[in-house]
């Protein structure tokens, strides 16, 4: 940080200007600090004394006040127990805030189904719940939703946002991370299995060290591999290494601990008690880690690798055979075609690329397509024996590839050995400074990572970190996760900055509630599904979404949850809900990423030829699978998702934006996806006896009101006249309903 030519993190720089600082504080010159008014005499005297003594400041974190930062203290279960509504009602009562009544049943089932599944309930499910008179109908509904595999698909996506998941690695080539999807499926499965969160953390940070014999657990370390990287660029290995370590350090601190370590990379943190030394000690935990593969099934993995090995050798031979067979014809056809063109074209073709003049280049480019024979041009000239040879090669290729599929591998990391490379804090002005050991930041006790046993195959550094994170002693892990879950349910966390529990984030208004939830979460075995249930069973979650009188003025941000905050669907929810309403949703789970067909104009701006970067999945039924299974390229987001605030997947995203813009309306109104799904819906509506009622049930999960029916029947009549068919009018109806607020918002 530099201000007024002074590096504020440089002791010598600051020491050199203590005179100027004293003058500014004394309001003696042009610069007056602080600008808001001269300091009182006693404070001024204190500062002057400090400046005169050389403006020294301690390099380690000040132990006093910050050590008492609320989030760095152990979670303490509030005495006398409590409940979500107990805490909230008391807080609200103190402020005299009114509270909304309970939401209608129809609203509740839609709300909770979107929250847990990212999908709307069907009309039948809605009707059943509305009619369910049993006292535990709500609880039964929650249990049913939590038991469904749709749950993991929704909550897995929250996690994938946090860990900056993507199926390609970014930059110019944007190459595929061929097995990243295994990690995606691991995350979805983990949520569906209600894997205890402490275990989920341990598997991702150090599955290889803690569960070395369990491939399913070791898959968790794929977490480190699914981010952006430029491993495919050469000559920048040193930079790449630094960037990879920075990504590991910053993302891990942010996702699991809610700490923003990034600042401390270059200097002691200005706000949090994290020094540069802390940063490099933390980073040293990841220094020994290298990317590797987990063999999900050992024997199949060996067979697969051997098969690949042979196949590759076979391909070299096939390539050579094809070249030998085709090249003579390629040259002949080229010559024939050139002969029909002006001689300077032939000269341009014969001149090596680097010697071509611009004119020759232009000639070459202008004629290349017409002169260069296609494969089919060549095959057309093959003699019968040549054709037979071609088919022999073809058949060999087909048999080599006919069952080609991803192998039983999952991306992972592990350490190369028990010995770790050394880590140094960078020295001021370049070079290596102090050597550090791997450990946790001083403010959390500063423990070194344990020394691995002599027989260990890895450094056990990540193991040490994981066990510290997943222990009940850690003040952050449970609080941060509980707060995230709360945020995903209520739109806003108890702590607003979900990935920043540092000292700049004051204790939340509902601190006791947060601690009560975190303590209960840990006591109950770190079970996320139980946490959901605790939250969803509360009255706070079940309130209506209209603000009671007076609340908007007294509590504009709805901090006291007097009502349930209405929200717009997220990008994936919009797409998935359209598929569900149209009756086309394919609920197949898992597997390699699906590449749906997009219009040419939607594929604009990719760094690579579309034919390489957007290889459309052959089976069109796959295109209607849930959005979490669609490919997420770093260099290109599907326009519909992009416009509705899907994050780029480059940096960890702890909270999505929810914007309202005209391009969203254009995309959802005119895009090919909406049109295709509206057509599918129209086909079903036309077959139904009462298309208006069928439309309302499919899209809204309710019956149309009489005035709605009147309006829509007039609409259908008019559109039938304008567009020439009832079917086309019904397509327009579907297109309309997908664009309405009742569909796009959750009450």
């Amino acid at each position, binding site marked *: 940080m530099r201000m007024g030519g002074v590096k504020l993190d440089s002791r010598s720089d600051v020491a050199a200007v203590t005179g100027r600082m004293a003058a500014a504080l004394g309001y003696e010159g042009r610069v007056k600090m602080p600008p808001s008014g001269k300091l009182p005499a006693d404070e001024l005297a204190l500062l002057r004394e400090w400046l005169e003594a050389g403006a020294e400041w301690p390099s380690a974190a000040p132990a006093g006040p910050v050590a008492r930062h609320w989030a760095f203290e152990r979670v303490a279960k509030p005495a006398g127990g409590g409940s979500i509504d107990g805490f909230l009602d008391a807080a609200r009562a103190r402020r005299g805030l009114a509270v909304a009544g309970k939401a209608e049943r129809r609203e509740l089932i839609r709300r909770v189904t979107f929250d847990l599944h990212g999908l709307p309930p069907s009309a039948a499910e809605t009707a059943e719940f509305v009619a369910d008179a049993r006292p535990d109908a709500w609880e039964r509904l929650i249990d049913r939703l939590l038991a469904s595999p749709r749950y993991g698909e929704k909550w897995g996506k929250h996690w994938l946002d946090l860990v900056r998941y993507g199926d390609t690695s970014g930059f110019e080539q944007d190459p595929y991370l061929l097995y990243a999807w295994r990690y995606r499926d691991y995350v979805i499965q983990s949520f569906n299995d209600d894997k205890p969160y402490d275990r989920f953390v341990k598997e991702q940070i150090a599955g290889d060290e803690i569960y070395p014999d369990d491939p399913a657990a070791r898959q968790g370390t794929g977490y480190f591999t699914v981010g952006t990287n430029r491993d495919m660029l050469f000559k920048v290995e040193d930079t790449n290494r630094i960037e990879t370590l920075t990504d590991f350090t910053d993302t891990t601190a942010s996702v699991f601990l809610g700490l923003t370590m990034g600042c401390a990379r270059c200097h002691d943190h200005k706000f949090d008690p994290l020094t540069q030394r802390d940063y490099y000690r933390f980073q040293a935990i990841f220094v020994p880690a290298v990317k590797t593969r987990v063999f999900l099934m050992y024997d199949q993995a060996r067979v697969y690798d051997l098969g690949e090995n042979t196949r590759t050798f076979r391909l070299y031979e096939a390539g050579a055979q094809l070249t030998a067979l085709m090249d003579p014809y390629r040259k002949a056809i080229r010559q024939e075609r050139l002969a029909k063109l002006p001689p300077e074209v032939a000269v341009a073709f014969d001149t090596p690329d680097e010697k071509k003049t611009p004119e020759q280049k232009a000639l070459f480019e202008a004629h290349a397509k017409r002169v260069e024979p296609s494969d089919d041009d060549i095959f057309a000239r093959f003699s019968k024996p040549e054709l037979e040879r071609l088919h022999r090669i073809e058949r060999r290729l087909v048999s080599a590839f006919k069952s080609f599929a991803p192998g039983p591998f999952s991306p992972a990391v592990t350490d190369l050995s028990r010995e770790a490379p050394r880590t140094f804090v960078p020295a001021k002005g370049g070079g290596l400074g102090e050597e550090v050991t791997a450990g946790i930041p001083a403010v959390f006790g500063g423990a070194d990572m344990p020394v691995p046993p002599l027989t260990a195959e890895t450094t056990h550094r990540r193991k040490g970190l994981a066990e510290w994170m997943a222990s009940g002693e850690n003040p952050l892990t449970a609080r941060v996760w509980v707060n995230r879950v709360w945020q995903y349910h209520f739109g806003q966390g108890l702590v607003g900055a979900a990935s920043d529990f540092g000292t700049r984030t004051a204790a939340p208004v509902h601190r006791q509630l947060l601690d009560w939830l975190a303590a209960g979460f840990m006591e109950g075995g770190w079970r996320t599904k139980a946490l959901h249930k605790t939250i969803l069973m509360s009255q706070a979650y079940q309130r209506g979404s209209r603000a009671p009188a007076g609340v*908007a003025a007294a509590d504009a941000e709805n901090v006291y949850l007097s009502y349930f905050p209405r929200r717009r669907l997220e990008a994936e929810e919009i797409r998935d809900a359209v598929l569900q309403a149209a009756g086309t949703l394919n609920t197949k789970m898992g597997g390699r990423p699906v590449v749906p067909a997009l219009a040419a104009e939607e594929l604009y701006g990719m760094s690579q030829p579309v034919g390489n970067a957007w290889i459309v999945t052959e089976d069109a039924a796959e295109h209607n699978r849930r959005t979490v299974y669609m490919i997420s390229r770093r260099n290109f987001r599907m326009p519909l998702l992009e416009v509705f605030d899907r994050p780029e997947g480059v940096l960890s995203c702890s909270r999505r934006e929810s914007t309202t813009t005209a391009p969203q309306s254009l995309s959802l109104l005119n895009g090919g996806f909406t049109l295709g799904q509206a057509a599918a819906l129209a086909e079903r509506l036309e077959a139904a006896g009462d298309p208006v009622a069928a439309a309302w049930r499919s899209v809204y999960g309710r019956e149309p009101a009489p005035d709605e029916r009147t309006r829509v029947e007039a609409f259908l009549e008019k559109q039938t006249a304008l567009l020439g068919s009832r079917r086309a009018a019904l397509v327009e109806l579907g297109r309309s309903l997908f664009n309405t607020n009742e569909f796009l918002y959750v009450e």
Partner: protein
Amino acid sequence: MTNGMISRRRAVFTAGRGFAGMALAGLMDGAPAARRARSVIYIFNHGGVSHVDTFDPKPALSKLSGEPVPASFAQGLKTSRIDFRKAPMRGTPWKFGRHGRGGLEISELFPHLARHADRLAVVRSCHSDAFDHAPAIFMTATGSQFPGRPSIGSWAVYGLGSENRNLPGFVVMSDGAMKSGAGAYGAGFLPAAHQGTVFRTGPNPVLHLANPGGVSAEAQRETLDLIGDLNRRHFGPRDEDTVLEARIRSYELAFRMQAEAPGAVDLSGETEATRKLYGLDDPMTENVGRKCLLARRLVERGVRFVQIFFGTNLGDDWDDAHLDLWGSHIRMTRKSDQPVAALLTDLAARGLLDETLVVWNSEFGRTPLAEGKNGRDHHPYGYSMWMAGAGIQGGRALGATDEFGLRAVEQPKTVHDVNATILRIAGVDHTQLTWRYQGRDQRLTDVHGEGEFTGWLYGA
């Protein structure tokens, strides 16, 4: 939630808008430099323009052409393909001339632009260390070699908003495939509304602007009316919710945009003289000419930030200079010199130049050393850019590279310095334009930009 930016951010949610961003007027209060430009047109030369062949003459390089570079100069430099210790120096094949009253040196590759020499403020001392395209493009456009951060246009419209609600505040025109992908004009962690909207050629410049096939304007109006009626019915008991209201309005805005955007790109009303000026009558200049003319039309309509990416990964590119410096630079300047000069002429003639900042930049320069027989490699350690318009004093050059054009040695300027300057001229203090993300108040210029040179541009 006491953080000022957070409450602004909430305001962003509730602001019912078209393409328009929301101006953070507070950022301009008491800002030292008054706002000079209403709009920015940023011509980004994709692939890397050779500085020693265009705006940074190096007689010593020509004199020692073919010799290895002195070891002390090559020390510590690396790039994509060549080895600085082995490759020979290569003098420029083009002549430089002094132009305008200021005698600014420009090579013969830019005969049209040279006539505007007194309008151009050249920076000869740009430098960075990103020598691969994608990281260098990200660096130049977003201030970070890593993707995921908001681009300069996104920051500008986030800070300044747009003056035309029916057109995007940040418009991008490119030649298609970019080595960085769309991240070069992405909004990063800013709301998606701030990202660059790609304008394509043809009557429907914006994605999804046209009605679906077979849907007439009348039928589309019927559909929009039904959406409006159903939304208003839904809104009745929820009328305190400004977001719902904003979405209702967003459909009306979309409809107006469908009406206005095609008009903005319809060049049929331009005179024959104007079309000729931009070179629309010549297949070589037609592409860039159309983009530059469109840029002027958009600026006229209040679009805040127009960025033209010239060059593409899958066609003609400045990067063809790897194998063919001569051909590539002749081709690329032949395609762009007249149109870019025409843009300056036309803006000036219409009185728009004083309120429009024109930026001409590239992700890096090219090596003063030879790659192969007739090429130059990527070179971020010293390269040139220029600015014009917005009342800046042209005909001058800032900074210098060493005698062979290798390193910026006088007044070295980083990408952050350049971006800080652009934002300042557009009316925002780069140190105040922040967005809280990952626990930090993020800036386009990170913690840098102290080498901002706005003062120099205005004659200080």
